[in-house]
């Protein structure tokens, strides 16, 4: 029996009433060895900062294991590892910030491994559906070169998926709309 999905609608401007929760940006508990910060700014098609947006991360732990309860893949044994982070920006600078660890490589269903990556959901007023992107890491050139998902991304656009190193982790800006070389690659999921 097949039903049809409930359609998406915009998250609107007032999501901060309902979506934030305490510690939402802590993908790993505070004080976790090797913890780092991934932060970034979201920009629109004019190059202006988008001040109101929801960003969510979903990722494996440093060993490539997930905090998933449905017995998919290896289960994370890292205490308190949530694998999920949420940011609800509602004023001003349009910056999101997550505390996490760099994920390990995870398997690809057709064999081989995927490079370390984080799945990202972006929602905002003015967006009738979420957009999905992936964060990859610049210090993994060999794994990135062998990654089956990156291989499907036009070569000249792959750089938009690479986080940039910072003093305390990485920076990953999201350009919702822009010239082809700058607009972040989004995926049909």
């Amino acid at each position, binding site marked *: *029996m*097949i*039903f*049809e*999905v*409930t*359609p*998406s*609608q*915009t*998250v609107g*401007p*007032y*999501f*901060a*009433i*309902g*979506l934030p*929760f305490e510690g939402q940006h802590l993908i790993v508990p505070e004080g976790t060895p090797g913890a780092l910060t991934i932060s970034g700014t979201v920009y*629109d*098609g004019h190059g202006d900062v988008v001040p*109101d947006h929801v960003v*969510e991360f*979903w*990722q*494996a732990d440093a060993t490539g294991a*997930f*905090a*998933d*309860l449905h*017995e*998919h*893949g290896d289960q994370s044994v890292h205490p308190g590892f949530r694998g*999920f982070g949420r940011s609800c920006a509602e004023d001003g600078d349009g910056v999101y910030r997550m505390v996490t660890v760099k994920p390990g490589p*995870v*398997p*690809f*269903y057709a064999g081989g491994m995927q490079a370390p*990556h984080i*799945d990202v*959901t972006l929602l905002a007023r*003015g*967006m*009738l*559906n979420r957009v999905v992107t*992936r964060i990859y890491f610049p210090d993994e050139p060999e794994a990135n070169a062998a990654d*089956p998902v990156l291989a*499907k991304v036009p070569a000249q*656009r792959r750089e938009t998926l690479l986080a940039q190193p910072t003093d305390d982790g990485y920076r990953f800006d999201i350009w*919702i*709309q*822009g010239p*082809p070389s700058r*607009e*972040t*690659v*989004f*995926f*049909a*999921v």
Partner: protein
Amino acid sequence: MSATEEEEVRQIYNPVVDTPTNYRREGEEANPPLDYPPYKSTQLRHPKQQLVYLPHTVTEITGPQLSAALDLKPTDSDLTVQHAGEPLGERIIVSGHVYDTEGKPLRDTLVEIWQANASGRYAHKWDRWAAPLDPNFKGAGRCVTDANGRYEFTSIKPGAYPWGNHYNAWRPAHIHFSLLGRAFTQRLVTQMYFPGDPFFPYDPIFNSVRDERARQRMVSSFSIHDTKPNWAQAFHFDIYLRGPAATPFEESF
């Protein structure tokens, strides 16, 4: 109906317990386009480059379970008891099931809602509409579906409100819904509408879903059976998240 057939029918409605390795991808008509000029804010907030096909790997078929992190209380699902007094407005029960597209209920999945008060005003610093705030209404709720995939909130009926999209623009009354499902691929943020809303023909957000039948899947139904006599009206809203894709084995039939 034989015992075996009965068993098969019952099986369809058992909760999802399997772990799909590949999810359905709905057609373009099922969801609104990201570029939809009648909703003006989409203009600078949609990608212009083509989306890249993402296969459903282990990252996409797993997903977060937040119920432990949120430590939910019964008052989280009753928006009328979160303050010192009762909010103004028509008291309503909003309930339904979360299913996948095979009709299987999703148990233990997080449902998050937020909404305007009875005057159509949000308890948010950016909402400056000249309608009264209600000190007894914040408008946020959370719950987790039960073993049958059912959720239930108690709230008040939100009001319609004007917005700046075009001359004399009004949003139909709605409640925002956010669902995590069981997998990253199932993430859904939507809005639940009320039956027969006179603003439907004029709202570009509602009409951004171009398919009439798909639009109707966002409209709740009045349910006399779910009302609480002498206490609350009731609206029923079932939510469907993507289910597993057909396997090659099934396709060969």
